[in-house]
């Protein structure tokens, strides 16, 4: 444990021996943390390690069961998020917390708006301040449009703008970069550096280790709710950090098995959805993992949705195991053996207030219904089976899904679809926002499924993941398939060239 507490300035914000439990789950046990002015401090740990809980304790959302929160060295009790904010603590939570009906400007300044005479809101000043913030972040979002319908990345940007909108002494960010593109992250880091120079303390969570090494001075690691270490980042290697987080040396991150592809399982022919994607044709064979690469917005998710029948297509054909699918009918796609693990698990993959077992059971309703009644026993045993196979970390299988950490939620989504025994599995950004340990597990699982003869189509913006896992790489650019690259020829350069439309495919 090395920190400059004896010499330099006092910590602005600190936790001392904090414990917090949710029922039987001990999310934090005896965790201490000190944030100094002018430092960017990383918080590392696997999914479920307690990072978000720690942040919510600092933000006044949770009250610690034991231990203290110290502000400028003095013990404080935050009675709610408002108290923490008034103390100068800005928080970007892991899940966006926007008001869909209100404008972006209102979202940013909710609760702290510029005022005119008689306490009225100064709408003009609010708007101008929003425009200035957007400029500072280098994005082009209309301050007057409502937050409804914003992409996850744009929601995240609004969250960041919200946190920057007041002169915070402490900025806390829970995985702010999970959905952002490279240039957006670079801009965010520029802003973070400025804040650091102005003397703010920044607490930063990310599963992208290289981001931690890039911007953070010190790192605190948590494992299973326990404090493991607080140390300077300098002199550490990524492997050191992973070992702290996981508690062991990590197996291979891309455990791809060699498989000889079987017959064609999924065949997409000249699929077109006007204005979204055009003339998309490809095949996925049994046992194959086909990567679908491209920039965010290239139309990959939209193709997956159309193939699965969520959106209608305007022309073309989708054939599974030799049988054409009906346009716009997810139920026939499911019957044909297709499964889709969506990108936005909160909105599309899970019923957050329902139990883990019911969520896993949702897709199998037809097989676990007996004489019109649900067979709860069958549902439970099937859910347990998959939860165990995927090593989901939960207290009880009857707990609601929203109590799980992000990586475990993703496993539940996977379990839900794997429980249908699919022939063709489409996964959209399967490891976004997931820690390295869980990521390796998901990769192992995909590889095993392929080895069992499942045809896998993997959409991913994580290039190393595509290169490490795919037998073949398809690349999309502006709604068209621009390249098909064999595993042996796929490199970052060849894929990116096609993704940006620079290659003669």
């Amino acid at each position, binding site marked *: 444990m090395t920190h400059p507490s004896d010499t330099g300035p006092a910590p602005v914000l600190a936790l001392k021996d904090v414990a917090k439990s949710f029922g039987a789950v001990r999310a934090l046990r005896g965790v201490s943390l000190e944030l100094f002015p002018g430092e960017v401090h990383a918080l590392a740990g696997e999914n479920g390690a307690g990072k978000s809980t720690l942040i919510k304790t600092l933000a006044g959302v949770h009250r610690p069961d034991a231990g203290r929160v110290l502000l400028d060295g003095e013990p404080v009790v935050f009675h709610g998020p408002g108290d923490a904010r008034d103390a100068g603590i800005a928080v970007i939570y892991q899940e966006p917390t926007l008001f869909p009906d209100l404008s972006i400007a209102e979202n940013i300044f909710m*609760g702290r708006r510029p005022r005119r005479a008689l*306490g009225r809101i100064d709408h003009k000043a609010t708007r101008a301040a929003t425009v200035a913030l957007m400029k500072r972040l280098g994005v082009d979002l209309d301050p007057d449009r409502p937050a409804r319908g914003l992409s996850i990345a744009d929601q995240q940007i609004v969250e960041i703008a919200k946190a920057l909108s007041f002169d915070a002494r402490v900025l806390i960010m829970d995985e702010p970069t999970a959905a952002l593109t490279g240039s957006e992250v670079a801009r965010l880091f520029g802003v973070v550096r400025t804040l650091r120079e102005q003397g703010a303390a920044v607490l930063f969570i990310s599963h992208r280790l290289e981001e931690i090494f*890039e911007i953070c001075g010190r790192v605190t690691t948590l494992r299973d709710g326990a404090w493991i270490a607080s140390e300077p980042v300098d002199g550490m290697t990524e492997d050191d950090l992973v070992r702290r987080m996981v508690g062991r040396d990590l197996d291979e991150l891309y455990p791809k098995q060699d498989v000889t592809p079987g017959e064609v399982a999924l065949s997409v022919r000249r699929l077109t959805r006007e204005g979204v994607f055009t003339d998309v044709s490809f095949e996925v064979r049994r046992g194959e993992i086909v990567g679908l690469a491209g920039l965010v917005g290239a139309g990959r998710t939209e193709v997956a949705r159309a193939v699965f029948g969520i959106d209608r297509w305007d022309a073309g054909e989708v054939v599974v195991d030799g049988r054409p699918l009906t346009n716009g009918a997810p139920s026939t796609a499911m019957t044909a053996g297709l499964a889709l693990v969506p990108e936005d698990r909160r909105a599309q993959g899970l019923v957050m207030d329902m139990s883990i077992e019911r969520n896993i059971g949702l897709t199998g309703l037809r097989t676990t219904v007996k004489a019109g009644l649900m067979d709860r026993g069958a549902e439970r045993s099937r859910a347990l089976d998959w939860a165990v196979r995927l090593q989901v970390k939960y207290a009880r299988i009857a707990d609601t899904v929203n109590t799980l950490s992000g990586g475990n939620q993703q496993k539940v989504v996977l379990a839900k679809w794997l429980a249908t025994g699919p022939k063709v599995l489409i996964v959209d950004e399967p490891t976004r926002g997931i820690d390295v340990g869980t990521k390796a597990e998901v990769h192992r699982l995909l590889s095993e499924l392929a080895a069992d003869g499942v045809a896998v189509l993997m959409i991913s913006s994580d290039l190393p993941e595509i290169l490490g896992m795919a037998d073949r790489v398809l690349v999309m650019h502006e709604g068209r398939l621009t390249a098909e690259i064999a595993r042996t020829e796929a490199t970052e350069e060849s894929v990116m060239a096609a993704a940006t439309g620079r290659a003669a495919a």
Partner: protein
Amino acid sequence: MTVTTPEQAPVAEAPRGGGARLVDRVFKMRELAILAVFLVMIAVTQAGNSEFLSEQGVKDLLLNGTILVLVATGQSLVVITRNVDLSVGSTLGISAFAAGTYLHGGGDPVIAIVLAVLLGVGFGLLNGLLVSLGQVPALVVTLGTLYIIRGVDSIWVGSRQITAADLPGSFVDFGSGGVSAVPWLALIALVVLVATAYYLKHYGSGRELYALGSNPEAARLAGIPVRKRILAAYTFCGGLAGLAGAMYLARFGNVDSSTGNGYELTVVSAVVVGGVVFTGGSGSVYGAALGALLLTSINSVLPALGVSSVWGLAINGVLLLLAIAVDRIVAVRVASALKRKSAAARTAAAQTPVQAAQSSARTTVRKGDAHDA
């Protein structure tokens, strides 16, 4: 392999963009649509019966609408916070009788009105406390208070009745008088309406009502005093129901233990027809007021056209379903328009190749793992 240089992409000054205009337009349209339906209905009736828009006719139209407009205004605030107050009918009834009893005993009209409002405020506070403290849906809680207040009212009132003869002349005159065709009561309702609309748009706490109806969890995280706001909305709603009770007394002069029975359903219909979304977060009190006006005038239009008034209820129902259907369709359209807009913006933003290469570089996780094929 990490990126450190934030490159300077040209950033356009954010224009007052299509998204907001689109939504603005939809909501203005929503209110304009009700206004149009209302005006067409009046015009048709006038064409069929030229007596309809006489001075007395207009006055009746406004008087009938006034009380519903008041209660609907209060109800809108509650519905905007993703709650509902079903006890407004009972509150209206008991405040009307209380004010009547007080006046019958020789009380002052102004104090009688204040008394009715205070009584309503009291019941509003009760509702607000129960809803904001208990983790029970507002629908159930206020259904409970609906019966409790009605029960208390019945026990207290029994078979008694207040009639116009029990009331001072000045109070009755206030109920029927006005500036030419515009009754005093309508003016009061208008003032309340405009003030409420202004408050909702221009005050932080007003916007917070929308925020907490739009996403309650986010409201909590934003430090909005959720309980306090809900309590305030219910109190305001109760107060207006009380005021409406006093007005009911002034207008009709006739109150018994069943006054306001079933009124809550009319109020909720008016609010929903007026475009206040039942799941909270959006809608305006002007819309609700127009909805109230529309629903009440149907009851005047039918007799004027010689149609049996039994059709009134069925027509109300059809309007309600129509309103919900239209809202649903519009919401889906707007949502997909907004999605398209944001997708377009992103594609445009993601175009520069440099940027793309950077995004690839950034995602390298562990050296040496990627190319183990």
